[in-house]
């Protein structure tokens, strides 16, 4: 009898596919085997590798919370062959899931503090379970400030949830876009500039940030100017991955493997990498 290969995904069924933006779909996925389904526990920030059999496999943050709603949710942006194939799946179609992999946002450690969530574009995906977990345990945290940017208004990823986020106690949602349209009455500004304008206090606060590298770079310098220390800034790194098992060495950055040591790192940790992401 052979050993169980860590490369074999769980077989899953696509339950629902919802268009979130012109190029992003929310996939609701159910693992076929009931025992596996029951045992699949994960935390905000962890990811899984999704297989579109015949096209390949790629890593995606798990954007749902365990025990909430049905199945696992992934926000998939159409950007290459695997993501295109995943978007073309229809309810009832089969896909593969391996995971959960990686570390997670240690939200328990942030209890009692103010949380600033800063996301750009598809970078909101790993932040959605962070926001929803905080809302689930709202009394454990002080102020929650969400700054969400996108290229255009229709690229804001989790719009159906905005009313819920806005209505939550001590929660503020600030949206911004690079380019508005005829209906847009909100901000037209870059995320770093919005952070600068809103100037959240670093007092007893943690900033959790994810987005395009250039957004992160400029936002970091704004946060630093506001007085945030490196250990108050947390991010999740994107990396090429083929195995999720610390073997293929594709996500190797410095002596770290993003798939196992990450993807969540504090800026303090990242700044100690020999190689800068």
């Amino acid at each position, binding site marked *: 009898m052979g050993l169980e290969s860590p*490369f074999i995904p769980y077989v899953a069924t696509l339950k629902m596919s919802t268009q979130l933006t012109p190029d992003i779909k929310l996939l609701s996925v159910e693992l076929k085997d009931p025992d596996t389904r029951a045992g699949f526990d994960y935390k905000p920030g962890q990811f899984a590798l999704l297989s579109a059999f015949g096209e390949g496999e790629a890593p995606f943050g798990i954007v749902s919370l365990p025990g909430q709603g049905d199945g696992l949710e992934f926000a998939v942006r159409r950007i290459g062959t695997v993501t295109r194939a995943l978007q073309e799946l229809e309810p009832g179609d089969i896909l593969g899931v391996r995971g959960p992999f990686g570390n997670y946002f240690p939200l328990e450690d942030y209890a009692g503090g103010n949380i600033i969530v800063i996301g750009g574009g598809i970078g909101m995906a790993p932040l959605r379970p962070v926001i929803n977990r905080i809302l689930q345990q709202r009394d454990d945290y002080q102020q929650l400030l969400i700054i969400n940017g996108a290229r255009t208004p229709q690229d804001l990823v989790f719009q159906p949830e905005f009313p819920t986020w806005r209505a939550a106690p001590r929660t503020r949602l600030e949206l911004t876009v690079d380019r508005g349209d005829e209906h847009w009455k909100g901000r037209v500004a870059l995320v770093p500039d919005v952070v600068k304008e809103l100037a959240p206090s670093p007092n007893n606060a943690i900033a959790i940030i994810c987005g395009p590298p250039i957004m992160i770079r400029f936002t970091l310098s704004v946060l630093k100017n506001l007085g945030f220390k490196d250990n108050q800034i947390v991010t999740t790194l994107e990396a090429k991955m083929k195995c999720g098992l610390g073997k293929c060495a594709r996500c190797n950055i410095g002596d770290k493997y993003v798939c196992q040591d990450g993807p969540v790192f504090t800026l303090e940790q990242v700044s100690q990498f020999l190689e800068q992401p």
Partner: protein
Amino acid sequence: MNLFISKDDLIRWLELLLRERIIIAPIRVQGQTMFQPISKVEEIMFDFDNTALSSKGWFLPPTETLFSVRRDDGQIKLMPATVERDAIIFGIRPCDARGIALMDGPFLQVPSDTLYQERRNRTTIIGLACRQAQPECFCTSMGSAPDDPSHVDILLTEVKDGYIVQVVTEKGKALLPKGWAKYKRKMPTPPQLKTVPTKGIVSAIREFFNDPYWERLADRCLHCNICAYVCPTCYCFDVRDYPDKGKVERVRSWESCQSPGFSLTAGGYDPRTTKGERLRQRFYHKLLYFPERFQEVACVGCGRCGKACPVNIDIREVISDLHQLAEAKSGS
């Protein structure tokens, strides 16, 4: 305790072993000495410098199917690849055996790579000590030796009228028939090798991450990847799906950190866009990152990379250069 067998007895023993197992041994293939499964013992080369490729390909094949996907009646079945038979690698050099021991680090760490692990479990390694050193050899500078038995199950050393047999592990012992004579004479002296100043390299390299040295060195690199393919310890891989007539195979294949796009994400982000950054990654992985994770430098001193490189990028030279950079820095 060491034993002795004549060459004739060795051949008879291998013939017996071949009835029940696959034997992978150095054979002549299109002018190159390569490790391949043999069909007859006569194919084996007993006298060779070293093989063109190391034997890592037995444990991590250049391409292999991880599993195949079968669809019947709307149901889907994932069929894992399996390892069917016991095997023997015959004639591996001590440096390459050490390469396998180094690959064990990433591949056997939890969760273990089961295909690799099964092949490892089901393969017995019979080494062949080097009686001559090649110009590219520097294993003694990398913690091994031409007669190092540490990472094989049995080590053979050729002497005038046959082979000295050192039985290293229980796995090796299990292959031996009874009744071989004891070898009581002195072991032959291993060949002397030129040394490479590897001492202190792990701490030396750390200082030169942002040095222009890497771009300069990489200027002539053709990113042909041959260094990674011939290396006994390079193990980066790619995974892709190959659909064929309604069947899909998920296939793993060798990849190299020298390839443009090796670390390019679908979103267009790439932490290593220049040849210098990629070449630096190769040496940092071997000389710093791997030692930090697995406590050993990921080089066995086989010298294949330097010999194979079309533009003479040689790890021995890189190590010397780094020491010189370190000296220049401390002197200034």
